[in-house]
């Protein structure tokens, strides 16, 4: 029934719960597809055909991706539940509001990564104690 209509089946995870393959669709031609293995398979006939008639290639784990320096700066450091980025724009912005915050102003500071932290005279020192070492970590040999 599916001879010539399915090719390149491969397990999609190490637990062999999903199979990826190419399917020759009557309207769209060869298209990428996937199905769960076992009772959860939405096309049981296709799953059965693959399992009984085809050699299924092993799962290939993706290569881990190391974040770039800019990505790590943008990811930021967590303070009071907010991930605070540490780009140079953040540094300039924080320097510009420091005196204002220290004088008692409440400043909703928007970081370069889009997150906002409400800075007050009460939390400013604690924030600096977390943020400055994180920022400085990018400039240590």
């Amino acid at each position, binding site marked *: 029934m599916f001879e010539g209509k399915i090719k390149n089946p491969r397990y999609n995870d190490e637990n062999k719960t999903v199979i990826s393959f190419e399917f020759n669709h009557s309207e769209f031609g060869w298209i990428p597809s996937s199905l769960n293995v076992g009772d959860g398979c939405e096309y049981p006939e296709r799953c059965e055909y693959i399992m009984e008639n085809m050699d299924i290639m092993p799962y290939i784990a993706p290569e881990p991706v190391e974040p770039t320096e800019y990505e790590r700066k943008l990811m930021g450091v967590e303070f009071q539940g907010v991930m605070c980025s540490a780009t140079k724009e953040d540094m300039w912005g924080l320097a510009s509001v420091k005196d204002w915050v220290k004088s008692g102003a409440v400043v909703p500071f928007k970081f370069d990564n889009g997150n906002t*932290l*409400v800075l007050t005279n009460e939390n400013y020192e604690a924030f600096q104690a977390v943020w400055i070492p994180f920022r400085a970590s990018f400039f240590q040999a």
Partner: protein
Amino acid sequence: MSITPPGLTAEQKAKVNGIGNLNGIGQTATLCLASGGAGINPGQTYSGSALRYNGAVTSSPSFSSTLRTCNNGITPQGTWRATCDSDNGYGGNYRAMGTFVRID
């Protein structure tokens, strides 16, 4: 009420169960790519295994505006066509998200 697009095989028709069916052919979903670095091209077809159901959460506006997508979503089955254009110039740790329609 059942909506059945024309030209489907009996096997495919069995998968088309109307508007309320999450996984039916013709249904749309918000999905993200399972791996980072790539963008989503409108009209391109993707294996369900390359996608994850996804959405976003945000914390209280009075606390912060942190927006995070939901990681490790469920993997859809079948084949999905992108109905969005999501460029991704941010590197391998960023996964593109958009809307898709299931075609098989």
